[in-house]
């Protein structure tokens, strides 16, 4: 029994040490994680949701087309050096939709432009003044711009004989008519690739604009790209074959360029919220610790210690998983602190009862834990149920703020069960086992007066 406690203590200390090491300082890189991941409401940024018009897409290939749209949007955001943005494909109301979160950008109009509500790449040539204008040709008497629509879906990257990457492509029927007209007049000149009004740029920041060497009829290759650029471009060309307009559906009618859902938070509001949360959390924690110390004395101190372990481990989990912290999430964290004490209170109250009933300290601690366990288990499971339902609700579009709270509360309550059952118990057993403190007053109980027969 004794040695088991020692092992548990070593385990707790190791866990605590590791958690402390990983969060101090908070912005140190641990397993590729730096700092806490903050949600939009704390950091500022934009969240946009559009529905897709997939009516032009061959049934069965929607998933693929949406992945293409996602790739293109991600590319464009990455190109601006914004990290931590997320683009997700969702199904909403039987329609595909795309949710885009861009932290740290303040201008909603610019963000929309950046997301760009088109995915098709356009080829451009230089006019006499050096301006880039769409490269056009005539097919069936109609003037068409050469775009990624006219590629076959089999664009791929291979490594040529000299070890340099080659991008191999093939035109579809329309492409086969357009390409010779355009390439034949551009021999020795550049052909640039545009996404919206922005040229496509390579890793080095230079626009990708290959020089046309000869007339291209049905298939060709682009040389001189870096491997990453070539792969990126082939991905975009494959994705950009189909135009997926983004907007929203209203009563079965598609309205392009109008978002379904928009959320923008100014970074200053986020900073203000962080400061206020820290103050609130600090005050709450100090009052909590004071209460436990004054009311429960020695076990209260033990509870404070295990609450310390709880706080540090929880922060480490938030950082390493990582859990995106939102303002309601912080509220969930603070609330879970209050509830974490609950399990300790349950146990200590039980212990006091047992001590008053005249049991020995060791027996009272064990009885306190054993008898309090069913109550702790049953009561926390109801909170878990609430959290799971909330996580489901939060995964739905209109309730984005919800999941942050539910996830932090869920993790918090689970961890609080662990700290109460394992950490507090081990500490208390060791203190009692070492016979360091025997005075019952230290446990918040007036010693029991007993009457016995004189011998």
């Amino acid at each position, binding site marked *: 029994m004794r040695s088991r406690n020692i092992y548990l203590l070593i385990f707790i200390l190791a866990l605590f040490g590791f958690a402390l090491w990983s969060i101090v300082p908070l912005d140190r890189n641990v397993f590729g994680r730096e700092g806490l991941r903050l949600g939009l409401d704390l950091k500022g940024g934009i969240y946009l949701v559009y529905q897709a018009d997939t009516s032009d897409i061959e049934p069965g290939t929607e998933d693929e087309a949406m992945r293409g749209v996602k790739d293109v949007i991600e590319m464009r955001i990455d190109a601006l050096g914004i990290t931590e943005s997320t683009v997700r494909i969702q199904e909403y109301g039987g329609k595909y939709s795309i949710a885009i979160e861009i932290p740290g950008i303040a201008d909603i109009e610019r963000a929309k432009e950046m997301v760009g509500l088109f995915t098709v790449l356009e080829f451009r040539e230089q006019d006499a003044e050096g301006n880039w204008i769409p490269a056009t040709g005539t097919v069936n008497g109609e003037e068409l711009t050469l775009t990624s629509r006219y590629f076959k879906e089999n664009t791929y990257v291979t490594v040529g004989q000299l070890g340099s990457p080659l991008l191999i492509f093939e035109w579809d029927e329309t492409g086969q008519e357009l390409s010779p007209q355009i390439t034949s007049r551009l021999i020795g000149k550049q052909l640039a690739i545009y996404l919206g009004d922005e040229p496509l740029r390579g890793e080095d920041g230079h626009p990708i604009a290959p020089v046309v060497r000869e007339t291209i009829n049905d298939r060709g290759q682009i040389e001189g790209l870096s491997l990453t650029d070539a792969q990126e471009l082939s991905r975009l060309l494959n994705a950009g074959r189909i135009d997926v307009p983004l907007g929203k559906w209203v009563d079965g009618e598609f309205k392009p360029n109008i978002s379904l859902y*928009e959320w923008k938070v100014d970074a200053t509001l986020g900073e203000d919220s962080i400061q206020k949360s820290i103050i609130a959390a600090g*005050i*709450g924690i100090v009052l909590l610790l004071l209460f*436990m110390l004054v009311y429960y004395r020695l076990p209260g101190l033990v509870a404070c210690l295990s609450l310390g372990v709880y706080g540090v481990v929880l922060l480490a989990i938030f950082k390493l998983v990582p859990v995106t912290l939102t303002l309601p999430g912080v509220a969930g964290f603070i609330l879970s602190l209050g509830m974490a004490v609950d399990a300790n209170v349950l146990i200590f109250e039980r212990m006091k009862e047992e001590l008053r009933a005249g049991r020995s300290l060791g027996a009272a601690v064990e009885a306190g834990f054993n008898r309090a366990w069913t109550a702790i288990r049953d009561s926390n499971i109801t909170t878990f*149920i*609430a959290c799971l339902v909330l996580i489901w609700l939060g995964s739905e579009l209109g309730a984005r703020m*919800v999941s942050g709270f539910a996830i932090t509360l869920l993790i918090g309550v689970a961890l609080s069960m662990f700290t109460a059952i394992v950490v507090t118990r081990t500490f208390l057993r060791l203190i009692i086992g070492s016979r360091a403190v025997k005075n019952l007053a230290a446990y918040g109980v007036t010693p029991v007066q007993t009457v016995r027969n004189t011998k």
Partner: protein
Amino acid sequence: MIDFVGKKRWFFLISEIFVVIGIISLVISQIQLEAPLRLGTDFAGGTSMTLQFSPAVEQNQLREEMAKLGYAEATIQKAGEGNFIIHIGEITSAEAEELTEKLGAELDSQVEIIDYYLVSETVAAKTARNAVIAIIIAAVAMMFYIVWAFRRMPKPFRWGTCAIIALIHDVFIIVGIFSILGWLAGVEINALFITGLLAVVGYSINNTVVIFDRIRENVSRHISPDFAVIVNSSIVETLGRSLNTSLTTLVVILALFLFGGATIHYFVLVLLLGAIIGTYSSICISSQLLVVWEKREWRALLPSAKRTT
């Protein structure tokens, strides 16, 4: 020993008064706002913005200006010094910029949109439906859990039902209070309100379960032939714990309420009310319901003039 069970008629009466006030408020709200609660952007759709004015302007001034600009229907809530949350119909971010520029010029103040939020009506309608479903699922799941946890007791279904009635009681009183705040102070409910409610549901049940757990233990120890006595001593034995946990939870929530950001002010209010009402209902309502059921004293539930104990 305090007689919590003996005073049950009073406790029921107090709760019934609150519930009736809540119902009246929901009806008033339904007539005035065409909804039992003032629905926020998440549930009604539209655009909601937090505007920061420097120097600060008065809420009345802002309301007048908004009315002049054609937004008489706007809901305006104060959110800290110089900040207002306004909720209007769906307008784009470009239109929002235009609106705030006009407001700034008329009110002679620097205006900044620090939070802009647009939800399409289709999304909002679905969210509202989901929120109701979420609460029902949570309540049913918890009831089944309690029935399972108390499966070894005679009539486990009874325990689950009593816990759920106490829970519905808590939710109803909070909904009533927010309904009053809705037509009185323009407080809107959003997805976070539902979140708070569900957290309260978890918390309130948590308290009830601890007392039920003690009743379960005392029943198996046969401490008294009278079920009412068993229940009362269980409540008294766990009273220290019930009050202490409520106190620790209240302390942290109060800190959040007083010092936390304006964005989650009403969310924290739900938690605060929930902690108080949840503690009350677990000590004064749920276990008493068990006794009423056991003894078939259904008349105790009715607020009658003739009081016999």
